[in-house]
């Protein structure tokens, strides 16, 4: 599942034209993000620079999903959130200002959830769900048919209900729903963790290519370093709610400094043993898809 280097470097091929997205055209910064619940600190001093596709790495419970929730204004009730977003036009949005953060949701920042099946409306057809989001987010560039094609699904799936989809199809539909909002930044929370390896490789190839084609910045939450390295260029490693290491993935893999990063690299290297076994079929699925 290696990625050709020129694909890695390619920027947005076709800008998604809407006023709001332009504000983030060259990225977005998060500074001083903190979150506390009942005077217990859950996140502290998290800084992110969302320019190239960014991976948010760390063990379970490190606070990866919580970072996304804070950015979306969906932090747990009664928690206090600090920090601010700096948009590319210089505008600053306080993360504690939930109204301002809510205005960015959809066209600004959009979530691709871990469990697609749970995020789809079980009693409505896929087409109706896509149409609703297109209308709510005033997206007149796309149509349900164009979105379903963009995520690599057949048009006949539009007529189906969520329970008639496989796990991989449901996750692609969730991606189509996220794209319907025309997001400037797509926050993907372990989008492939419920899929088998083959479906995972295919989904991530689609995720990377659609984000690049639409100029959406990608933040990928994962605990799998090899996976992150196939999709992203930079990474931030979290542990116990703090950033312990950040930088280009090539650098983190070559010389991890913090024990958490070292454990992630060691775990990924061990999985690599599967390839050491011999030449055989190395035609990576991700390469074939992209």
């Amino acid at each position: 599942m290696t990625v050709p280097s020129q694909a890695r470097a390619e920027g947005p091929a076709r800008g998604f034209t809407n006023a709001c997205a332009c504000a983030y055209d060259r990225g977005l910064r998060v500074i001083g993000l903190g979150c506390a619940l009942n005077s217990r600190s859950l996140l502290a001093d998290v800084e992110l620079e969302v320019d190239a596709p960014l991976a948010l790495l760390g063990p379970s419970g490190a606070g990866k999903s919580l970072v996304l929730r804070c950015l979306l204004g969906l932090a747990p009730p009664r928690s206090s959130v600090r920090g601010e977003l700096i948009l590319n036009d210089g505008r600053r949005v306080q993360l504690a200002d939930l109204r301002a953060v809510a205005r960015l949701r959809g066209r600004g920042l959009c979530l691709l959830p871990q469990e697609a099946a749970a995020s789809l409306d079980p009693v409505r057809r896929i087409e109706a769900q896509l149409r609703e989001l297109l209308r709510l987010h005033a997206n007149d560039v796309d149509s349900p048919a164009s979105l379903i094609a963009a995520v690599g699904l057949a048009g006949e799936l539009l007529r189906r209900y969520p329970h008639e989809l496989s796990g991989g199809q449901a996750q692609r539909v969730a991606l189509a729903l996220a794209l319907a909002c025309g997001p400037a930044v797509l926050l993907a929370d372990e989008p492939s963790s419920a899929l088998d390896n083959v479906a995972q490789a295919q989904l991530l190839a689609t995720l990377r290519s659609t984000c690049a084609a639409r100029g959406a910045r990608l933040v990928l939450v994962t605990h799998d370093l090899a996976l992150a390295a196939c999709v992203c260029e930079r990474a931030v490693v979290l542990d116990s709610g703090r950033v312990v290491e950040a930088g280009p993935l090539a650098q983190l893999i070559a010389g991890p400094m913090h024990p958490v990063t070292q454990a992630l690299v060691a775990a990924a290297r061990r999985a690599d043993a599967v390839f050491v076994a011999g030449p055989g079929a190395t035609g990576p699925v991700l390469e074939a898809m992209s």
Partner: protein
Amino acid sequence: MKDRSILSARGLEVALAGRPVIRDLDLELGPGDAVAVVGPSGAGKSALLRALVGLEPGLAGSLRFGGLELVGASTEAWRPLRRAVQLCWQDPLSALNPYLSVAELIDEPRVIHGLPRWRVGSPELRASLARVALEPSIERRRPGSLSGGQRQRVALARALAAEPALLLADEITSALDRPVAWGLIDLLRELRADGLGLLLVTHDLSLLPGTIDQVVVLGGGEVVERGPVRELLAAPQHPVSRALRAAVPRLPYS
């Protein structure tokens, strides 16, 4: 060879609601054997495991446990297998009773199978926790307060409490982060060195080297390829095996 096998399937067919989901499967498992069944989602991996412990009624062909035929046999005939073959489920949170403490969860199979009980604070219970690398202090906690890795270890300790000869593991690492998953795989390898037979179901081929000897690749309910793990990883022949190997995320820059 035949004498030592614990569980042996010959031309096994499993049907769900009259539709066959596994066809013509041969599988032989003995003490200390380590076999992996791999395949993409929907290949029939979990249905196979459920069938092997008697949770699927629609069986045809032959399934022998300790030399006795189980296909078409009474529920009573399955009873020895129910203790000797233990299944560890993919999602430990839904497999563990949330109202029971860790000690009660591990003691329960002892009660069910009429084995001497392991009560809270007993050396046997502590030893069973130590065997899966859990602290003794965990025994009074409930599943909800444990991490994913701890829960899966409790599920493993519970399976081992029945003193099985075979352990069937259904994607037990898929909900865990990588370093934790490796800890669990290492544990399976130690258990196997102690003579436990192991059947690991997964879609992740990277887990197999060093732990598993034989691989059976399932595709659409049929065995599409089988062989020693080293050979199969070095030169997978069938498109399903090739796709599975190619889909392992590979670490670049190395």
